[in-house]
């Protein structure tokens, strides 16, 4: 039930164990580092942060739209402007995220025990696409009506149409402004925490500088020695 703490005091509850595990996985100097490896000084490493900045504006502009409502953002000039910036920040978010994806794909960024970082990136991309699609359904015009009636056929074909009804404006509004932003936010936070915990992946030609890759290679080498694998004698 209890475990010994480094300082000598005892941990008696789940909060203490959670704190200890969190600090071990992500100590403060890893969570908020002051320096990065030299290979991070490249434009290709900028697009992850660009995606987060665009997502930040998407959320802020979405909050402004939610505060004032459709009668404001469809009718007033300023409301229309904020509505348009909400759309264009989503465009930027996806552009930066796709360039980030290309960069990381050709960098094989799942190396060095970073598979979960890669998987959460894929999840963030997929959940963001669903969130953006529900945004198209909230334009309250013929365009959104057309998109909803095309999408319902696909959703009915996979068997979820009765529950996730794209022609139900109220339900789709709730998904778009509550559930899906929470999901995107949670996945993005987890993705960033994993990047902090495992460090930024190095380019292929700088693999030997990465401690996680070196540790894995050493572990593999130790495993090979133990099992006698590769022993020709």
């Amino acid at each position: 039930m209890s475990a010994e703490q480094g300082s000598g005091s005892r941990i008696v509850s789940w909060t203490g164990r959670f704190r200890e595990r969190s600090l071990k996985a992500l100590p403060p100097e890893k969570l908020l580092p002051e320096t990065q490896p030299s290979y991070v000084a490249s434009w290709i490493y900028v697009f992850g942060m660009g995606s987060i900045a665009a997502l930040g504006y998407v959320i802020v502009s979405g909050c402004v739209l939610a505060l004032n409502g459709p009668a404001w953002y469809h009718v007033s000039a300023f409301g229309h402007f904020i509505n348009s910036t909400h759309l264009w920040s989503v465009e930027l978010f996806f552009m930066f995220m796709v360039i980030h994806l290309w960069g990381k794909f050709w960098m094989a960024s799942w190396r060095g025990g970073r598979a979960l970082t890669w998987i959460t990136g894929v999840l963030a991309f997929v959940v963001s696409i669903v969130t953006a699609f529900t945004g198209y359904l909230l334009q309250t015009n013929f365009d959104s009506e057309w998109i909803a009636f095309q999408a319902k056929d696909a959703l009915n074909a996979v068997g979820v149409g009765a529950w996730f009804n794209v022609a139900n404006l109220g339900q789709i509004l709730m998904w778009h402004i509550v559930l899906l932003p929470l999901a995107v936010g949670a996945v993005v936070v987890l993705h960033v925490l994993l990047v902090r915990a495992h460090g930024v992946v190095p380019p292929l030609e700088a693999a030997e500088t990465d401690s996680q890759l070196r540790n894995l290679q050493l572990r593999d080498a130790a495993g090979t020695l133990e099992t006698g694998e590769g022993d020709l004698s």
Partner: protein
Amino acid sequence: MVAQGIFLGWGQFTIQLGNLIVIIAMVVLFVLALLLPFPGGRGRR
């Protein structure tokens, strides 16, 4: 009314001009990110 948009087509393949511009912009940004030097990048350890 919403404008129809400009569509480009080559045989079976069609694409809206706006979508094509976004895709080209992404490819250009990706290539520039690989080629352009990062300010203050030199001399770092």
